[in-house]
């Protein structure tokens, strides 16, 4: 298991969680925890949303995510504050 990933228990179910920037290209996950920022919410980065990592830009550039058919570029610093889980 990657070092950044941990386990979280909600209502008796065990989730593997990790920071969103631990995703690899093409991987799908669900938003588990996200800072309350109105623009994040408007771009579809909200609790429980299904995201797919399209790519990671070079030189520590943004992550590019696909959420509900939209492509969103997300800063690495911000990404490190967002956790995802593998199961819905």
């Amino acid at each position, binding site marked *: 298991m990657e070092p950044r990933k941990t386990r979280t228990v909600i209502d008796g179910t065990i989730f593997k969680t990790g920071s969103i920037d631990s995703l690899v290209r093409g991987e799908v996950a669900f938003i588990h925890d996200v800072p309350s920022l*109105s623009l994040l919410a*408007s771009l579809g980065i909200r609790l429980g949303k299904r995201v*797919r990592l*399209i790519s990671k*830009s070079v030189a520590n*550039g943004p992550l590019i995510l696909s959420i509900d058919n939209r492509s969103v*570029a997300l800063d690495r*610093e911000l990404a490190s504050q967002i956790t995802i889980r593998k199961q819905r």
Partner: protein
Amino acid sequence: MMGLPNVGKSAVFNRFTGLDAMVSNYSGTTVSYAEGTFDIEGETVLLRDAPGIYNIKHPNDEAERVAEKMLDDRPDAVLFVLDALNLESSLNLLLQVMEAGIPTVVALNRTDLMRSRGIKIDHVRLQRALGVPVVPTVALSGDSLDLVRYALSRELGKTIEAVDKKDDAARWERVESIKRATLKALPESNGRMDFLIRPFPGIPIALGVLVLLFAFVIGVGMGLRQYLLLPLFEGGQLFGGLIPFTIPGLFPFIERSVEALTDHAGLQGVLIGEYGFLIKGIEWPFALVLPYVITFYTGISILEDVGYLPRVAVLLDGVLKKIGLNGSSIIPMLLGYGCGIPAIMSTRTLQSRKQRIMVATIVSLAIPCVAQMGAFISLLAERSLLAFIGIFLVSIVAIVLAGLVMDRYQKQKTPFTLMEIPPLLAPKPSILSKKVLFRIKHFVRDGAMPMVIAIAAAALLYELGTLEAAGRALSPVVTGWLNLPEEASTPLLMGIVRRELTVLPFIDMADMLSTAQFFTAALVALFYVPCIAMIATLSKEFSIRTAAGILLLTTFTAFLVGGLFAQLHALLSMTL
């Protein structure tokens, strides 16, 4: 009229008002609001096109404040443009707007794209859930805008009970429930075009596209000039003899006419002499600069409408962060290669003042506008291709250095990147040609006309001997430091009006100057004063102090870099 960024509000606005708000496929094309009127059942209605926003509850940028202010002005009705491709965020904004208690009509826009992507939205249910009229539209082709007009006529003047305000979580819950009730199908995107935003092959493709853009601008521009405009103005065969018909040309005709009308040497000088404005006033703006204006705006408008530029921004974001900029600054900088004024205006979409000033400074200092680029091509490319490429390299080095230096001295942190990448769209020829024509018209009105006037003034001052006197005053700098002939001070004076006027007069000094002197002149011109209109824009957008600072910086850099090159070259050629 309100809605998310990049959903076609400006297109709807243009349809209704017959005006020409700029339409592009990326967020933030409308940075302030446009205003226009149209008729609803015999009554004239004022329509305001708000900039696209995601929220009004937590205004954190200029566009959101502008939009919030528009709601505070209590309009008679809100026309909400709802993006069918992006139901969720649209609904979230719509619910915020409806909390203001103003009659609202919803135009469910981009239904054509919605259908082609297999997305299905039940607009009748949507109307029921929202309690306001919902009209499906395709703004770019004007479908069903009459229905919107009709719906508006019924809503205007209604009184609406104030809606209780919700907190963000509750609003998103309502958004989700409306979405579940109305969105019938949302197929997963196939990701076929994702390779464009992956570093490989995305970055090589982006560099290739930019090289192609400039090759197109320069190559096709030179062709237009050589085969179409020069024969028209100077006489000769169109298209290099493809059409076997020789045109007498405009300039020989003008020269003969002036010579026939007057023998007064001074008057002849003003009209057809050194800076004779009937010749230079037509040749410089229309034969030397216009071709590149046409090709640049054709190329950049295609990239804009396809939605490719935000992809370049995202790919290069990490790299640009290293010099204190971010990916989004690519768009104003690219626009700067067209004209500095729209470039400076479009910095409004950048998140912080630091970014805005940095990009505006870079555009003023190191990015030649299309008119100036046309002048460089005429001056250098035909003489020494190496010198022309050299100027471009110097410009790029200057952009990086300016970024690094300013980043060091500005305490503010570069804001984080968080942006939506618009869907790729095939450009519509009718919209594209309208946009290119609009921009060319803009160049003729705001670029070519001041140029003609400046040339006329120069012609007059030249005949009066004033230019010579000014040249003598500047000669210690011009001849002593820059190693240029005294005549070179004239273009420096004219360059204050228009950037390319620093370059163009040197073309007529071809016989007097060495290639090194040409290069010195081009260096000075590259960094020299941005034109009067740009200085005015800078002081309007920022402050007179900022504009004065940029003016000093550019002038100082121009003489420093130009002089250093001239002195170094002189030193080297002496020792060699």
